[in-house]
């Protein structure tokens, strides 16, 4: 088990390195750089611009830039923003909590709602409830999350004359304000995952409810509640866990737009602006953050598999 985890971690590190190098190089291939964008329309001379490029190291070949950046990175120095010259690490750490809150809550809400909807649909298979829930799930699966967010904003504004506050408040300072601001983004981000989880939960529960071991549990005279919530659900979570890794990718991708829409100062906003500005150090740092988050989640999911399924935990036969 430990060897398995370490191997997974090893793969994760390799993936992160590859992603970093890929983004590092790709960003520099995109036309235009930070200097030309900053200095356009200012009439600054070409010499001055070149001097600025030299200061940022942009005149070196890509592989030299990469090497210098890596040398800094291993010391914990991810460089400074090309704009305000602030260290990327500081810039970044200030924004991480918002994205983590948003992402985690969206995942939690999506998974919890998805499981609930999936269980209800599976248990009431073939009924009107089941059909309604399935239509509802497909609808959410096919509508992008920012559209859901817009619809919710409009609906609340129209019917309740309410809209979320525009300035972010720390939950520790103004919990109500924070909750008001986070509610719609969290829900909008969570819906896609919810729909996917609901569909998968429904189908794997149906498969499990028709299985031999469930027949045995029923033959023992166990209450149907236990049959569904203990045996069938637990067996279905194995499939759902796989989905959660993919859901995280959707949620993280979603934060970029949602954070901008709701004025949430998270890494999504940061990376959005940094890409437009060709602020390479910031983009690369954000990418590493997202890749790292992803790798850690996947390892966690693998560990959860082992926690749920003894066949993974104990390998093969002891008899």
């Amino acid at each position: 088990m430990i060897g398995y985890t370490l191997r997974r971690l090893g793969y994760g590190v390799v993936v992160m390195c590859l992603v970093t190098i890929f983004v590092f190089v790709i960003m520099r291939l995109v036309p235009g750089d930070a200097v030309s964008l900053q200095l356009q329309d200012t009439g600054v001379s070409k010499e001055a611009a070149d001097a600025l490029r030299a200061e940022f190291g942009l005149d070196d070949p890509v592989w030299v830039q990469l090497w210098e950046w890596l040398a800094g990175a291993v010391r914990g120095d991810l460089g400074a923003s090309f704009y305000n010259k602030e260290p990327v690490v500081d810039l970044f750490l200030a924004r991480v909590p918002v994205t983590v809150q948003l992402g985690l809550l969206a995942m939690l809400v999506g998974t919890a709602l998805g499981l609930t909807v999936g269980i209800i649909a599976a248990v009431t298979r073939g009924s009107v409830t089941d059909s309604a829930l399935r239509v509802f799930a497909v609808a959410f699966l096919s509508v992008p999350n920012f559209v859901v967010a817009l619809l919710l904003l409009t609906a609340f504004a129209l019917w309740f004359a309410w809209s979320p506050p525009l300035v972010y408040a720390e939950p520790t300072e103004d919990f109500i304000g924070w909750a008001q601001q986070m509610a719609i983004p969290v829900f909008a981000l969570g819906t896609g995952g919810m729909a996917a989880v609901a569909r998968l939960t429904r189908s794997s529960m149906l498969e499990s409810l028709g299985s031999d071991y469930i027949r045995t549990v029923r033959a023992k005279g166990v209450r149907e509640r236990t049959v569904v919530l203990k045996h069938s659900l637990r067996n279905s979570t194995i499939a759902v866990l796989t989905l959660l890794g993919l859901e995280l990718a959707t949620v993280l991708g979603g934060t970029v737009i949602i954070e901008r829409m709701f004025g949430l100062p998270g890494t999504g906003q940061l990376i959005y602006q940094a890409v437009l500005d060709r602020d390479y150090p910031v983009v690369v740092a954000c990418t590493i953050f997202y890749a790292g988050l992803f790798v850690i989640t996947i390892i966690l999911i693998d560990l959860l598999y082992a926690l749920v399924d003894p066949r993974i935990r104990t390998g093969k036969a002891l008899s």
Partner: protein
Amino acid sequence: MPSPPLLEVNDLYVRFPTPAGPVNAVAGVSFTVSAGETVAVVGESGSGKSVSSLALLGLLGSGNISAGSVLLRDEELVGAAPERLRQLRGSELAMIFQNPMSSLDPLFTIGDQLVEALRAHRPMARRAARARAVELLREVGLPDPERRVRAYPHELSGGQQQRVMVAIALTCEPALLIADEPTTALDVTVEAQILELLRTMQREHGMALLLITHDMAVVAEMADRVVVMYAGRVVEQGPVAEVLRSPRNPYTRALIDSIPTPATPRDQPMPAIAGSVPTPAEAPAGCRFHPRCPSVLDRCSEAEPPLYELRPGRASRCWLHDGALRAGPAPAAGEVHHVA
């Protein structure tokens, strides 16, 4: 009748929805099981033998009982409240299945699954249930029960898993154990062990055994009485020794003849039944066996013969027995007729 039977199945119909409309997988099946007795229901695929047994416990997936009655100690189970059926399952009526590998929940230990069965019907402290689980595992002959109680199903062999299933079935001392092809998925040496275990447990716990099987040899070894089914119908029933030695129904006879035994001559063709076993949807009109029957008569394709009671406890569904009847209106299918 000395004592009323423990289980009395009367004219049972089990219907399944199919795209082509509802199909009766079991059509008018009647049999009884007395306390402590072993009754075998034997048949080939599509005979409805497993469906009947699952229907008794209310464990059918998509099908349902459309007519008939199932009495357990004079209590009607058809139409009984689901909660009542749940109370009976595992306490009065226990069941084991064909495939032990897939019949245990892979995510829970053997001990957990036994404890769950113990606590489903009576309040019991977790600790006491745990101790009882170890005892039960020892009783069914699982080696090293103290350790195995913490094992997961995949850590056991098929034979050991089936022993665990038997232990689960025994938790509440059921009056009737239904064993649905309990050894079909097992190797012969393990099959012999499980059959022996079932015999021992039956003797020690005084329970009745309803054995569902396709294997006449298992019937011969285990059962007191046998019910032979074909395409959803009972075609013959009676004491095992009599039915096997002198089958009265042409299907039973042909089936027995087509089983290879150590005495089958190698230089001659095996006696075989022509054609194939019909699925419930394609069961022919008239006698369901008539297209394959070596003794077929004209009337066999026109009307289905009733189950003739040849003498108390012995019955066969075949027009051949009609010769012994006085002239009279043709009896309706499903009724029992006495042969003079």
